[in-house]
């Protein structure tokens, strides 16, 4: 009887330990919305209905502009906030944006369950990361981004990183899409996959949605004003990853210049 209290101490400690183990650490989380807003130079980008001047001697009406983003990740801040992987793969498409109002609304991706804190940037790879590029559309359920068969080259066993399609008026006759005025650029291959970081402060707060805008300027994907280089629609109205001068240029411009943090 005298030793009874001592006998219970280990049991008490064990109980406390188990109770402590049972209590999961409460992690506060919030959501992030990334709104991609397309432009062509300073103009809102939308498909079909809008004619855009191109280098002063051509006009174009776009029908499709889309690209894949891989390894979309929020960058951490020192030791306080760890990086957070948002998604292995996303498809950003302006194909269904057909009015100025829709262009101003943009194309939104939403991510939930992100640990609260202040993140220091957004990182992504433009295109399909090599390990995912080794898969094919039938590996996915039809609603997943990589299930798109029109974004996959059977012959090359590769996804198409970006598609830019439209009808141009190159002879200034007011008609778009005559024989040599159909523009299709289907570009991408594993060796062109590279990551890009956009520094930006992103505050994720508990039970609320933080929104950031990412601008995507299609014009910058097609021309480099600093160097005076550009895609000449007359010379190359289409490239399906055949001409390195074209696909290297567009993929690099899109990754390095066309995508930026907006307001």
């Amino acid at each position, binding site marked *: 009887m005298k030793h009874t209290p001592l006998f219970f101490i280990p049991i008490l400690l064990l109980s406390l330990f188990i109770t402590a183990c049972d209590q999961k650490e409460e992690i506060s989380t919030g959501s992030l919305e990334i709104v991609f807003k397309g432009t062509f130079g300073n103009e809102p980008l939308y498909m079909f*209905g809008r004619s855009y001047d191109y280098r002063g001697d051509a006009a174009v009406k776009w029908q499709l502009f889309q690209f894949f983003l891989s390894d979309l990740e929020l960058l951490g801040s020192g030791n306080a906030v760890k990086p957070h992987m948002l998604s292995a793969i996303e498809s950003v498409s302006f194909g269904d944006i*057909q009015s100025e109002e829709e262009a101003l609304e943009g194309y939104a991706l939403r991510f939930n369950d992100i640990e609260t804190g202040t993140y220091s940037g957004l990182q992504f790879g433009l295109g399909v990361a090599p390990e995912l590029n080794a898969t094919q559309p039938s590996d996915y359920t039809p609603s997943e981004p990589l299930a798109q068969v029109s974004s*996959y080259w*059977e*012959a090359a066993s590769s996804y198409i990183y970006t598609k830019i399609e*439209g009808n141009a008026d190159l002879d200034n006759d007011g008609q*778009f899409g005559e024989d040599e005025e*159909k523009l299709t650029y289907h570009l991408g291959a594993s060796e062109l996959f590279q990551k890009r970081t956009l520094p930006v402060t992103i505050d994720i707060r508990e039970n609320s949605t933080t929104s950031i805008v990412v601008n995507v300027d299609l014009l910058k994907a097609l021309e480099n004003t600093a160097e005076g280089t550009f895609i000449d629609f007359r010379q190359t109205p*289409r490239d399906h990853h*055949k001409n390195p001068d074209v696909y290297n240029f567009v993929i690099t411009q899109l990754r390095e210049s066309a995508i930026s943090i907006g307001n």
Partner: protein
Amino acid sequence: MHQFLKNSRAGVGSLILLGILLLGTACKKDTVGDDSCETCPATDLIPGTYAPEPYVLELADWMGEPIIPADNPLTKDGVALGRMLFYDPIVSSDSTMSCASCHAPDLGFTDGTAFSTGVEGRQTTRSSMPLFNLAYNPNGFFWDGRSPSMEDQALHPIMDRVELNEDWENVVRKFQRHPDYPQRFRKAFGIERTSEITKELAVKALAQFERTLISQDSRFDRVVYRNEGWLTDSEQRGKDLFYVEPSLVDHPGCSHCHGGVNFTDFSFRNNGIDSVATLNDFPDKGLGAVTGRVYDNGRFKVPSLRNIELTAPYMHDGRFATLEEVLDHYKTGGHGVENEDPNIVPFTLTGSQKQDLIAFLRTLTDTTFIKNPAYANPFN
């Protein structure tokens, strides 16, 4: 006297009860097919058990995951019921036509005509669409995409005045009074009373059956995916032309829209078949009539090329009788209409290349599919 009255009241009560029972029995009889009981409430309990067994789609490795909505999983009884409804002319106003009237298995579930014919010889304005591998379609049904789901799609042909020209209310009533369907609905969906048979359940059953229509055993499948046998030289040349992409500029580019294991990307496109002065001049506006967007005018569903040999005539209006005519159209590169798909560009195609392409397309014919007894008319 008092006792007599009591006994008499009891007797009268018994008679009334007997009358009610007889009436009830009579009504019960009517609900299994006797049309003389117009006013019978369709609330009779349906006998039998509800023990749903999952229907497992037997899919080849290369086919990928289909879309099966969580609120309409495939069950053996659901699929069996859907198959019966698909072939039963009870769904048309004059009981002469069923879904299968325009979707015959041996024609890849089409009807071989440019414009399908409905009840009383009424003409539709579009060609009947092939029905297979629809479980992979993530993106709108019908040529114009007006239905977001297969269940919704199945609602329309019955109500369409130039197709089956029936009201769903009547169709449901016919199901409720049918000698067999109430039990089949119970087995499929667990309902307890005939009054619980609804159009929503009927289209769920139809959609379940349609999702089982999988074409995956063509010669192409066997050669390319199973490594069984070889293509002929002509077929192989056709295959190269079909898929050629990075290596040539001047190429048909078929796989832009008809890629993947289903030979369609399920998108809606203006494939350049109409020469119109403005986007409002398309004789059939297609997707545009659904969305109200002028730039969607003239855009139609990209059909699968599986079983293409069987599904002539081609296009939404059956304007091309043969595959030769189809290729002759595509090689001209369309008409330069503003919303024409930019992938429609002119290309060179010699006579022998055309035959090679057609030889390749014929390898997509799946005789296992069209002869599958599970898809055949259950009433035969």
